[in-house]
């Protein structure tokens, strides 16, 4: 049976490690980590450095590590050269709506699987697990036709609506959490006349806040990073999110998106993710490890 790996320590960020000796230099591990950290961050550095260079500097024979003139104006220009602000707002709205849908739907469905006992429940839950492992690519063509019949192509519905219908993985994850709620507690409340709906929002949901945060964060990152969805469904520039907006402008008007501006835009795409990471670091780390089924 699958359970969840739990890491009881919360924000490990600054917690001193107790168990093993801390003064041993552990040179090999340190060097590996330092080297790999540099390798992992250097593309992001190059992105920022390039974003501050001029087209003339980029055309030089040998690229420079530091921009010769720090052209912060590239960021302003990026805003003017393409509808960055609109793309950004669209991305944010799509992400927020997806998160709302995902959290609300997953917790309702998970409650149905965890806290109400009904005949055939566990058998149906096997289907939930099965859907987690089904390759998603087969849905590409039929889903497009489905949304076309519904008149939803070139709107945000195809990007958002699926989140309101609860994904298998999140249901699975939340169910694990909700199963930890003592059954007696729920039954006692039921005897007192509490409805399931009330129990869900007043008891179950508050108790699974950490898991809900994980669902929210994962949905947010997935939605913010999604490329193929908008590529297929959203062709109106006024509705496009960053992912597809930038790419299509590169294709349509390459002269507008010079490399330095593209990197400035990319930097602005990455910043919200970084901010979100530092704000919710705890949940990110937890969310990653909570997914590991053993």
């Amino acid at each position, binding site marked *: 049976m699958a359970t969840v790996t739990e890491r009881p320590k919360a924000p490990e960020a600054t917690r001193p490690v107790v168990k093993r000796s801390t003064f041993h230099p552990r040179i090999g591990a340190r060097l590996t980590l330092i080297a790999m950290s540099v390798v992992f961050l250097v593309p992001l550095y190059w992105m920022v450095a390039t974003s501050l260079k001029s087209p003339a500097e980029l055309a030089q024979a040998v690229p420079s590590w530091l921009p010769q003139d720090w052209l912060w104006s590239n960021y302003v220009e990026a805003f003017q050269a393409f509808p960055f602000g609109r793309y950004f707002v669209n991305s944010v709205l799509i992400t927020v709506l997806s998160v709302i849908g995902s959290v609300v739907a997953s917790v309702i469905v998970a409650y149905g699987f965890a806290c109400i006992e009904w005949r055939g429940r566990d058998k149906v839950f096997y289907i939930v697990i099965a859907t987690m492992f089904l390759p998603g690519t087969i849905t590409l063509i039929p889903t497009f036709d489905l949304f076309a019949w519904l008149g939803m192509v070139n709107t945000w519905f195809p990007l958002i609506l699926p989140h309101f219908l609860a994904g298998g993985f999140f249901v699975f994850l939340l169910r694990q959490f909700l199963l930890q709620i003592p059954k007696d507690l729920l039954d006692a409340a039921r005897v007192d006349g509490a409805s399931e709906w009330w129990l869900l929002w007043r008891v179950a949901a508050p108790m699974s806040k950490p898991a809900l945060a994980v669902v929210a964060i994962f949905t947010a990152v997935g939605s913010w990073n999604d490329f193929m969805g908008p590529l297929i469904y959203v062709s109106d520039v006024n509705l496009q999110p960053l992912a597809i907006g930038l790419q299509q402008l*590169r294709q349509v008007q390459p002269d507008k998106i010079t490399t330095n501006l593209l990197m400035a835009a990319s930097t602005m795409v990455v910043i919200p993710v970084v901010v979100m990471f530092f704000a919710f670091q705890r949940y990110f780390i937890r969310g990653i490890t909570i997914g590991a089924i053993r």
Partner: protein
Amino acid sequence: MRNLLNDSRLSRRDFAALLAAVAAGSMTSGCASRPDEPNVVTFWTSIADPITMKAWNRIEQTFEEANPGWDVRIIPKPSVGTGDATSLITAVRGRTGPDVYLIDRFTAAQYAGMGLLEDLQPFVDDTPGLKENYLEFAWNEASFLDHLYAMPLDTDSRALYYSTDMLTEAGLDPAVLDRENGPPTIDDVIEMALQMNKTDEQGNYTQMGMIPWDGQAFWATWALMNGAKFFDEKTCELTPTEPALLRTYEQFASWAEQFGYKKVDTFNATYRPPGSPPEQGVFYTKKMGMQVDGNWALASLREYAPDLNYGITYLPVQKAGDPPFTWSGGFAMAIPKFAANPEGAWKFMLHACGEPGQRIYTEVTSHLPTYAPLLEDRELIGDQAFFAELLQYSTSRPPLPVNFQLSDALSQAQTSVLIGSATPRQALENVYNQVNGAMKQFCPFSLPESTQRKI
């Protein structure tokens, strides 16, 4: 619901409702069905460089002036490579397509056969005297089974541009390429190109004379010059392995060896990387001595390199004494299936592809008109006179209903041969295997007469 959320959360709920309202508003604004706007025409263009956008804006303006109350909305749409219409196909399937779509004319038959475009023949039949004004080959290229599916806009022809400064610098006499001497031979041009190449100490090119497979020097140019037919009507088969095409691809293979494909590719990636501004183009900055290009390059040269010393001559030919050669393509405007306003679309197309629109397009973008009377206007044709004159030697690709796939496959085959991953014959046999099946469904198929012979 009331007891779900306590009072302190009400503001959050309001916020969510607000958010949903905003989102719902913007979600529906992109919808294509607009029965309440009979005077609006949406126009999707895959050509959206600054020069062409200038032309579109002027065409829109003149149309709206001539038709008060009408509103044309120009929307740039991506096209991934020649003839690609992914964005249109996707939009039409989702019933969110435009009223007018700018189509690469040689793919009109393919998209008509697919059911993507409205048949324009009823409109044409209601407009007497229309067809007679257009160059016959362009009209036929936009037709499928004798019905018009797209209104021809521009046409073009190709020639050899050379940088006189770079030739002189390499110790060559630019006068050799003078038009008076007739078309140069391929071998001579390659020989000159090799003399203009320069490399750095690592052996990488820093300057090149010419890349004989780059830009407009791609398979279509050499294959048509060699007399390729692409299709055999009798057997209703594609003929990618016909001698003309084989010869073209064998030539690519030997050029790739001669110039060093990898080194040329590195040159391209270094000196015209993605996202470099247009004024850094290699021909403008004297890093490229010669290039095969069309008349439209004149407009770019005016815009980005007004001081460059250059000359234009005939495309090179196989052997001395061969007659001049060029080929022509161009774009056209079509009405996609499920367009919200087909009547308005036709009205706009008559303007844009008619005399007023083509006049603007010719002047601004330096393309040639397909509206034949305009070709007589010497002032309008201006510095394109040589290209207009070339039209008498021109030919064009046959309008096959598989042209996009065929062109895609032939381009991939070109890369295969250049990289050396396939022999010319293997690569072309692959083309046959990929596309002939799709052609078979249209058999028997006959091509319109005039696209087969010289224009």
